[in-house]
């Protein structure tokens, strides 16, 4: 199994309040890693460390490493520009957030930000990423209509296509289906499973069934600490830690 990234003994504080406490876990290439745990356990905070989103708000402190392979480069280092981190690591949010632009421009956005000007290349990328996000058949005849006219599920797939267009090393999904209906959710899960062929995925989810269905690896977090990491089949059927078992059997959370 090839590591795409690894979190090494990561502590994270916001305004002197410790939120993550000595978290370590590997992220394997072309696999889906799910982060689960009760509200406030720090799973979203951990996810947002991967693309340095916390840097936008100041008064934060990273202590520890997230190494990106193959160079084993610590992306939390002060010497690394957070914008360059975000160029390599894409993110899809809880609520679909298409820009108030056309479908075409939404996907072209990341390419334009990276200075791509060639129209034929952009066109090609748009078709390619919409196909990967299994949205192409639904929107190919109306690429110029507003992205906000799409349904919630379509919008979320558009956001996935938008992130894929820039060929990220890792794709972060922050509860990508929590604002969607069951049918759209099933659609996204199917899509995510398909996507791992081409991209490494880290996904935060509240939905344990979703983690069990889609993720190859699952890590259970509690009160800012990593309690257990392992293959999803093991975590959900035969957890080693009592806390993990209590959580997945619904005794708390």
């Amino acid at each position: 199994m090839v590591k795409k990234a690894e979190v090494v003994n990561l502590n994270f504080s916001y305004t002197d309040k410790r939120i993550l406490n000595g978290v370590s876990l590997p992220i394997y290439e072309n696999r889906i890693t799910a982060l689960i745990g009760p509200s406030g356990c720090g799973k979203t905070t951990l996810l947002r460390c991967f693309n340095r989103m916390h840097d936008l708000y100041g008064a934060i402190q990273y202590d520890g490493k997230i190494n990106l392979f193959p160079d084993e480069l610590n992306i939390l280092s002060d010497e690394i520009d957070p914008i360059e981190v975000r160029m390599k690591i894409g993110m899809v949010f809880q609520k679909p957030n298409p820009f108030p632009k056309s479908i075409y421009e939404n996907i072209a956005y990341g390419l334009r930000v990276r200075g791509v000007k060639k129209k034929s290349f952009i066109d090609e990328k748009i078709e390619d990423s919409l196909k990967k996000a299994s949205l192409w058949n639904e929107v190919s005849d109306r690429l110029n209509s507003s992205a906000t006219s799409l349904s919630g599920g379509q919008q979320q797939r558009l956001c996935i296509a938008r992130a894929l267009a820039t060929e990220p090393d890792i794709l972060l999904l922050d509860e990508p289906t929590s604002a969607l209906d069951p049918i759209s959710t099933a659609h996204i899960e199917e899509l995510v499973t398909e996507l791992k062929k081409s991209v490494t995925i880290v996904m935060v989810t509240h939905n344990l069934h979703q983690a069990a269905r889609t993720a190859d690896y699952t890590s259970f977090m509690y009160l800012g600490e990593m309690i257990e990491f392992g293959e999803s089949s093991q975590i959900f059927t035969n957890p080693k830690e009592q806390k993990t078992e209590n959580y997945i059997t619904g005794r708390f959370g």
Partner: protein
Amino acid sequence: MAIRSEFSTPQSLKRRLRNFKESLIGLSLFLCALSSVLITFGVIYTLISEALPFFKDVSLKNFILDREWTPLFENPQYGILTLMSGTFLTTAIALTIAIPLGTVAAVFLSEYCSHRAREIFKPLLELLAAVPTVVYGYFALLFITPLLQKIIPSLESFNALSAGLVMGIMIIPYISSLSEDAMRAVPLHLREGSLAMGASKLQTSFNVIVPAAFSGIASAYVLGISRALGETMVVAIAAGLQPRLSLNPLESTQTLTAYIVQVSMGDLPQGSIGYRTIYVAGLVLLILTLTFNLIGQNIRARMENKYK
């Protein structure tokens, strides 16, 4: 003590009294709302009824095509375009200043400023709108014009340029304040979405936040345009009282509003044609402002359809 509530019959006094009170309040609220509508119609009626007789003496063709506005001369001419050119010229200069500066100020306040800095900057900027316009007028005449004359020696001492510039400064807070409100109302998840794509703050501000807030920003522009069209003191003091069909900003010019001020301060006999021109100018001004408001509303509605 237990609280008990019982059903009342439709005939009961308590219920009839309550219904009466409710309808009384409803009526008085309606009357308050109605009063502003009635006043607007009253203004329009006065303007039209006083302006219409004017067109018995002056044909619409002359009114539109004459190239001079000299209603008080021996051989009067009534080319309204003369005054309109003054209004358009000063408004255009003002907007050239106010729209870019106001928008950029709004982007700064909304996207770049820390909370504490905004608490200082915003009231200071809004102070610009609190300065009396007569002060702006003399500021333009006695400070800006001499300053500009050092750069442009051919500048007349009354001119559209300095009046327009100062008017622009005056309008900045209207545009920046409303635009900033609109930009700050853009949901955080759009901002984060753009930044997560690897966009810089600047790219996010102009490619995502400004378009997303555009219906609000357009309202701010429309308000700015209306303010500029209707502004009186600054142009009456600094732009001069010389009606001229020209778009040369270095010369003196007269706007619709400045004309109204000039003529209504004299003692024209009521009902004379000179007296009527005040109402005619007022009517044209109203139509202009209304047109821009309608255009603005139209843009806003289209934007909202597109982005909602």
